[in-house]
Every structure is written in C-alpha cells, then in structure tokens.
C-alpha cells in the first residue's frame, strides 16, 4: 500500500513534469494544446468537408471531425511520445533506481490531459451549437477506458522495443500515420465499401471512434457487442505489454 502510494506520487510528478516541460518550452505555451487540434480541424474541414464533401450522416462536418481529432490527439501523442519515454530519459534510467513503468505511464497521462483540454474546447463548441446531449454520453467513459487500454498496452510494447532497437521509434511514427488514415478520424466508417468492412474493422479503433461519435453527436448508445472486440484487444495489449515490460525492465539500465 505504501509502495503503491509512492508509485502514484511519482507518476503524478512525472506527468506534471511532462506537461510543464512541454508547455514552458513552446512559444505558444498552453495555446498549443488548442492550436494543434484547431489547425488539424481546419485542414480536415477544408479537404474532407469542402473539397470531398465526406458524408457524415447529417452531422455538421466540423463537429464530426472534431470528435475524431480530439480522440486521435491522445492516440498519436500517447504512442509517439510514449514510445520514446524510456530512451529519452536515458540518464535517469541508467543511473537511478525507480520503477521505470512510471515513464510510459506519465506520457499517457500527459497525452490524456491534452485530449481533455481539447475536449473542453469541443464541449464549448457543442454548447455554442446548442446540440442536445443525452445520457448516451456516459458511454464515452467505457469507450475512453478501452482506448486508454489499447494505447497504453501498445506503448508498453513499443517503449520496451525502442530501448533495445534504436530505430523502432521511426517505425512507430510511420505506423501512427498509416493508422490515422485507416481510422475514421476525418471520414465516416460508413464510406468503407462492404467488401473491405471486415478487414477494416480489424482496426480496434473503428468501433471505438464510431461509438464515441454516436454517443456524443447522435444521442445513440452503441451496441455493446461492438465494444467487445476493442475491449479484448485492449486487455490483450495491456497483458502482453505489462509482461514484456516487466521482463525487460531489469535490462533497461544497461541498454539505454
């Protein structure tokens, strides 16, 4: 219990550091949190909304895309920075005994905080559009938790591999970009032709992003069955990632 409290406090301090360091170093500071999703959103609105006229099932395109952008900001931020969380703290990892698990978890905390800030902006936007919310919004909680499980589990795996194979981070960067295109962030999964559907749905984020959009923008509760696959993937990744990390942690100090 004592150890758990210390672990929690260390995680809190490292998350705080992640946030403070990033926002103190950048010129725009906290505005960056809002600036980045807004710029992305602007481009999506132009390209997918105005040029391609992506179908959104009656939802105004900016609202539609904003949901995707906010959720994706966590996936991309958590995974890219998390992958490098061990190797970028080489001095600390090599010379100080402490639970290394706090490093990838703290980057998840930082990325989640970014997502929640951007989400707060989104909430203001929704309020401005006077869209009614229903209790279906509560589905965002389990959907969010499953998303966190998937990204955290993956990050445990990638941060471990990046410690032993220096160029693994570049591979992750490429995968994040491809993954963005294969996830309904800027477009609706409904545009995917029938014969690709099964293959497309192998991406566990498809079900999650669809469920989050439905709950938030259409007062629609997701069919719980559609969440079973993402949940299974998330639990599997956390289990594999946790075991891999625990096995590899004693070798970090000599490998960074």
């Amino acid at each position, binding site marked *: 219990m004592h150890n758990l409290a*210390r672990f929690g406090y260390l995680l809190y301090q*490292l998350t705080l550091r992640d946030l403070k360091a990033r926002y103190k170093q950048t010129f725009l500071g906290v505005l960056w949190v809002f600036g980045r999703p807004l710029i992305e959103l602007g481009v999506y609105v132009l390209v997918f909304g105005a040029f391609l006229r992506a179908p959104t099932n009656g939802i105004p395109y900016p609202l539609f895309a904003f949901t995707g952008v906010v959720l994706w900001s966590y996936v991309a931020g958590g995974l890219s920075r998390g992958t490098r969380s061990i190797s970028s703290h080489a001095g600390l990892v090599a*010379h*100080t005994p402490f639970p290394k698990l706090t490093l990838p978890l703290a980057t998840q905390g930082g990325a989640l905080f970014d997502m929640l800030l951007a989400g707060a902006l989104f909430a203001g936007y929704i309020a401005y559009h006077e869209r009614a919310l229903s209790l279906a919004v509560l589905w965002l909680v389990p959907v969010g938790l499953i998303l966190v499980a998937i990204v955290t589990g993956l990050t445990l795996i990638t941060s471990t591999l990046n410690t032993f194979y220096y160029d693994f981070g570049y591979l992750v960067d490429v995968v994040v970009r491809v993954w963005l295109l294969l996830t309904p962030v800027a477009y609706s999964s409904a545009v995917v032709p029938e014969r690709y559907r099964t293959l497309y749905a192998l991406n566990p984020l498809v079900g999650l992003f669809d469920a989050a959009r439905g709950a938030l923008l259409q007062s629609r509760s997701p069919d719980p069955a559609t969440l079973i696959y993402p949940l299974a993937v998330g639990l599997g990744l956390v289990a594999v990632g946790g075991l891999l990390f625990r096995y590899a942690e004693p070798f970090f100090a000599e490998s960074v």
Partner: protein
Amino acid sequence: MAGAVAVEGVWKRFRLRVRTLADLAGDLLPSRRRAMHPLRQAFWALADVSFRVEPGATLGVIGANGSGKSTMLKLIAGMMQPTRGRVTVRGRLALLAYLGAGFHGELTGRENVFLQGAILGLSARQLKAKLDAILAFAELEQFADVPVKVYSSGMALRLGFAVAVHAEPDILLIDEAFAVGDQRFRERCLERIRGFKAAGVTMVLVSHERDLVERLSDHTVLLEHGRVAARGTAAEAFGAYERLVRGDGA
C-alpha cells in the same frame, strides 16, 4: 530497520552490439543470427564477486576505472540483474550517483525537488516537510523559483545532493558523489554521511579517495577487472591497489 547486503558469486556480462531493427530481424530468425551480428561482443564486467555488508557497517569499494565498481552498485540497487549469482538486499535503498539526472532544466529548483524526491521514493508529505531543509542544505533558498537551467553546474549538483541525503534509507550506496561543490559544501556532505553512519545506516561507498574511504569504511574490497583482488581494511586494500598499479607500470 538496519539494512544488509549480501553478494554471492556474482557475475555480470555486458553485450556490445549495434542495435537496429535489422538486429531484431536477426533475433527473430535464428538461422541468420550469426550473420546478422558481426559486432556482437560480450565482456564480463564482474566475475565471481562475493561480499557481505552487515547491518550498520560501511563497505568501501575501490579499483581502477572500468574495474566494475559502478556495475556492482547498480546490481545492489536492483537496476540490473546479475548474469550469474545472487544479490540479496534487505531494507530501503538510496543511491547517491549522477545527482540531478532527473532534473528538468525548464522546471524551477522547488519543482525539481518534488520531482527528484518522488523519483527517490519520498512521499508528498515527506517532501513538503523537508522542502525548506533541502533548499537550506543546498543554500539555494533565494534561487528556489528560478529554472534549474540557469543554475551553475555546482548549484545543480548541490540541489541533487541535498534531495538525495534527505531520503530516509536503510542502505546508502555512494558512487563518487563527493565531487560536489566547493570545499565547504563537501565538508557538510561528509558531515551528513557521517550522521547516516552514526544512525546505523548500512553503506557501500565507491570512491578513489583514500582519505574518504579510510575515514568511513569498516571493510574495503579492491576490484580488478571485475574480480576481487584484495579485501581487508581500507589501508590494506589501498596497499594492494598501489602494488597493482606499480606492477602494471613495471
């Protein structure tokens, strides 16, 4: 509780190799393993090292650079696993080495105290209670709210040392941590270390400084290429070390 350390027949091997995704492919395809690793080498940093540190005792570890001293401390600290043999540690550890490795330049001295303290395993309550004492020990009260990046290297090291010695360890591992600050600060650090010793804290001290090792340690081991070349009092171990150095030179 007084801490204790037992090191029994410990060997530690390091591998030197180029590590890229090509190596990962090599690791996954056993048939190609040999061909993929032209640069894979291994060397033994420690070979069959054994010693015990009884509760409240201080062990000095001396030896040339690369003799395995720091590796030994990292094994005791649990940051690495021995390739063979066993390291048993009873009690809470603190490692005084590379102080300030966890500092972040953009954060203030005060913020870094909490960060570094948490890394060393202190709780929020302990840190709040000790913040003033830590800043006073480092003589940085006036600079508490200045980003650490504008500190001089001496100031940063002082802060690192101040946080580290305000942990409450049963076992204190010290790795050359005394090259810190000026003479006066050094004396206060030593004072603090002697205070730990008087309070019954078990210590392992890695150092090149004969004077320091003689003053603090009850037993001393000399490491030479990862093996225990001599053990005894600090004077005996340093005597053996000098004979070794002279022998190499002849």
